[in-house]
């Protein structure tokens, strides 16, 4: 067991290190960064903001990790967020109870995932194309639901999901932590993780070994849809309104980035949900750091891009083998490095 833990620590080390370095950098630019206080019975501070604002991307990254592990990609999650936010707002404002609203909304997200999954698994359409359909059409659907306006609501229960707190932590943080942990546990305590990885590395060989590749693929996209639905509810609850135009806009790219920064290969196979979640936090830490630093907004994207490129370069197999090579200056080390980068 301790060997497994050790392997786990080694897997997560680059991401944790990158996050730590970024947090340190931000705290240099903004000294009060690590300050935490209790306000109105909840923790309050920039670190909490990172956890809280990172919630949508973190949730999307959970589903995206699994989809990417199957050698797929889900471009539709941002649009599904918008649809689900709109559905939630529409339900609650037309008098459904909170439970019914949540059930309908989560169901909508799962249905969106089912659609993607069927296109990919049954019709064998390339994932990037299959999910592009909903990415493009999704915002239109969301606008139909909200009738083009920002659909606002005042239901305290729904609002609680966006800005309430539990045990001193904002609800969005609690939700993504619990959901991420749950998915990670289900995937790793059952055989799902291994079967998904087998499917992602070699779909035909997995099928010939008796893996139900079609069902697994569809399930992966459905999970991604469910994650997008939760993220959509949180985003809508946060601003007490469903903004079909802007909710989740471009977040699919941030989610993919989180997965990549988390070290999961876009070619499918080995994945780590924990690493993707840390990846999401890295992205949000950069965002929050930029906002706190007080740089003019024209620099936002440049700074973000530069930091992420740096992280990806450091993580690249070439760079890793170079590190190993330098740290063990014997000629034989280079050969082993290739293996360890995996």
């Amino acid at each position, binding site marked *: 067991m301790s060997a497994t833990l050790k392997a786990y620590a080694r897997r997560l080390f680059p991401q944790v290190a990158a996050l730590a370095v970024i947090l340190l950098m931000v705290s240099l630019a*903004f000294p*009060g960064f690590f300050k935490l206080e209790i*306000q*109105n019975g909840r923790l*309050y*501070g*920039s670190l909490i*903001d990172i956890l809280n*604002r990172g919630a949508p991307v973190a949730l999307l990254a959970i589903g995206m990790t699994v989809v990417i592990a199957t050698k797929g990609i889900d471009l539709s999650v941002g649009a599904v967020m918008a649809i689900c936010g709109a559905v939630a707002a529409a339900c609650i404002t037309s008098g459904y109870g909170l439970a019914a609203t949540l059930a309908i909304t989560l169901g909508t997200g799962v249905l969106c995932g089912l659609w993607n999954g069927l296109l990919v698994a049954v019709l064998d359409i390339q994932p990037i194309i299959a999910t592009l359909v909903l990415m493009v059409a999704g915002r239109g659907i969301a*606008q139909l639901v909200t*009738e*083009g*306006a*920002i659909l*606002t609501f005042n239901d305290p229960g729904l609002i609680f999901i966006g*800005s309430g707190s539990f045990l001193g932590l904002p609800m969005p943080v609690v939700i993504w932590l619990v959901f991420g942990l749950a998915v990670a546990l289900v995937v790793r305590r059952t055989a799902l993780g291994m079967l998904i990885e087998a499917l992602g590395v070699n779909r035909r060989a997995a099928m010939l070994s008796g893996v139900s590749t079609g069902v697994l693929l569809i399930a992966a996209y459905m999970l991604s849809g469910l994650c997008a639905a939760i993220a959509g509810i949180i*985003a809508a609850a*946060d*601003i*007490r*309104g469903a*903004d079909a*135009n*802007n*909710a989740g*806009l471009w977040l699919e790219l941030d989610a993919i980035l989180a997965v990549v920064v988390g070290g999961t290969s876009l070619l499918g196979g080995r994945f780590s949900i924990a690493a993707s979640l840390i990846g999401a936090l890295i992205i949000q830490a950069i*965002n*929050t750091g930029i*906002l*706190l630093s*007080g740089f*003019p*907004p*024209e620099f*936002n994207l440049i700074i973000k891009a530069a930091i992420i490129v740096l992280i990806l370069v450091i993580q690249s197999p070439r760079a890793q083998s170079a590190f190993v090579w330098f740290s063990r200056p014997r000629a034989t080390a280079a050969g082993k490095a290739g293996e360890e980068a995996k």
Partner: protein
Amino acid sequence: MTFKVALASATILAASFFGTASAADLTVGFSQIGSESGWRAAETTLTKQQAEERGIDLKFADAQQKQENQIKALRSFIAQGVDAILLAPVVATGWDEVLQEAKDAEIPVVLLDRTVDAPDDLYLTAVTSDLVHEGKVAGQWLVDTVAGKDCNVVELQGTTGSSPAIDRKKGFEEALAGHANLKIIRSQTGDFTRTKGKEVMESFLKAEDGGKNICALYAHNDDMAVGAIQAIKEAGLKPGTDILVVSIDAVPDIFQAMAAGEANATVELTPNMAGPAFDALEAYRKDGKAPPKWIQTESKLYTQADDPMKVYEEKKGLGY
């Protein structure tokens, strides 16, 4: 549905038979960009309302954000021989040819809420708001309100590089110029959205000693202000009291906030561009007098004193 259509056409018929003489037989084509925002939806609603009130037969074409659709719509209006065309151009360039065709057909074209890069003899007039002026009105309100007291202002900009963001920032800064008591201490983009408005405001509050250093917030649109108001509340402060909130656009939701005392002022970007446009058209048809090339709409300031709930009720039905 059919019933409604029948009713509407009956109304139009009735209008054309019994309407006022000046506009009875006026047919106007309206090429709208699309419905990408609540404001634009309201503009469409108001244009239709204005046309109906005046007994104008309005032919409406939604271009779904595509210039080629707008050019197609304009050509079809010209072919139908409308009396005038309203155009809300999606982009500034590429209009010369089709505008020349309209001119050759002696159909006056009125531009709504945006202008084009074309010789100004190709269109009758342009009805737009003045973005710089809007910023200035917002700034002037703040200058008057703080009345010489020291005040640190944080600013939520629109999407970086967009013209409303540039101009509304410029106008606000012009109004503040010469008032050393007012200082913009932080300025970040909130992308015109509630979510980003809230997120950025959260960071402002953290960065400025929990918000104790902040005396006023200026947001380039109401949506960001609405998001920021929530952030201020969640930080344990009272928006509208601890931090003054002034923004631009006058969408219905900000009036709710004003009624609750959480926002202080907003500057209206009126969605009623069609009213002045029809006024100009009717005058032009009556005595052939060309209006000025630019008709500036009013940038009206609303504050908590203007019965915000009443304005909210008025605006609610416009499709914002």
